């Protein structure tokens, strides 16, 4: 893994060395990292989003709202786990879920934390049957995020 530092936002995120990086793909999505292409399979990836939050909205309320949206935008959404954790010493929430994508079954983990009234969400996704192969990598990425 190699630390990626965003030139404008300043956050640091460790990313697997061989993964392709797309910087500022869209407003609010300063980094997409995706594993090398390998046939028709779902390509594991990590997407970092940053959104401004109402200062009165805490982590829990923000994430509760986000969780309500997921079944509306993801096919065959299944919520597997929710866990209150810490990322970089800050309160955070980990959400584990499953959904159906065009390339097949996907397991996604959302790692969310709040820093200076902005919500940071690292979404790590992998083909479901390969989840166990990458779970340690995803965990290391999330715990290496420094907003």
């Amino acid at each position, binding site marked *: 893994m190699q630390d990626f530092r965003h030139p404008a936002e300043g956050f640091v995120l460790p990313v697997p060395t061989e993964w392709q990086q797309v910087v500022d793909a869209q407003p609010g999505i300063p980094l997409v990292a995706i594993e090398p292409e390998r046939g028709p399979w779902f390509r594991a990836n990590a997407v970092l989003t940053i959104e401004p939050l109402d200062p009165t909205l805490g982590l829990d309320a923000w994430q509760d709202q986000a969780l309500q949206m997921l079944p509306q935008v993801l096919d*065959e959404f*299944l*919520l*597997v*786990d*929710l*866990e209150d954790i810490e990322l970089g010493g800050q309160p955070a929430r980990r959400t*584990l879920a*499953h959904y*159906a994508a065009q390339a*097949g*079954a996907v*397991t996604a983990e959302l790692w969310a934390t709040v820093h200076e009234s902005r919500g940071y969400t690292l979404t790590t996704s992998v*083909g*479901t*049957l390969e*989840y*166990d192969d990458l*779970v340690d990598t995803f965990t290391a990425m999330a715990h290496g995020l420094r907003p």
Partner: protein
Amino acid sequence: MTVQFDAATGRLRLPRDEFDALATLVRGGDVDNARLAELRSAGAVRGRQPHPVLVPVLGAVAEPVCGLRLELVDDQRRTEQGEGWVAGDAAALLLESPEAGQCELVAVHPMFLPAAIARIVRLGPRPRIPAAEPLQVRPELLDRLTSHHSGVREDAARELPPGASAAALASGLRLDWSVRASWTGLRDSLGGRTLRVLDTVAGLWLVEPGGGAMVVWPTTPTAVWRALVLLLPRDVELSR
């Protein structure tokens, strides 16, 4: 009509005997004409061939690489069972329906099996069990610890070492479920993996046999999901 088939969705509900007849048919065996008539009447069979929608899923039934057995026991000791067959790119789950004697055949791609099983066993967010210590318990004691009578559970918990684990294990059973995958392994050995989970009010537990007793480990939905993802055999574990 005892056999119900929807060609648009592939949904098939039928008595177990009718399913066995269908499985016999796809394996090339002889099937009683009366049973065949039921299957034809519902549209599940045309002539002596299954409806095209059912061909992939019945192919998995006929020539499975891996078999599955599911069992769910609720706090009232009511049992539901299921059976499954997995081939390269198709899998079938045959689930008991709440209606007596009826089964439902569910087609699913193998990559969606963890989610299909997770839905059946109602896997989802659960509280974390504060204690991390496993408990070793006799099967008979485990039955009492998961009784739907709180008094029986509390009495049983007193037979365990005092601590958070005992109280959590006796917190009340939501579901006791297990899934076993079995296959023919290298050099025709029997391969398999079993996952048994106690879903209690306090959280989830993995149950493993251990020297005449059961070892019960606090666990999490994430760990159970990982186990479901790893349930099916990898290529190196198979004889072919």
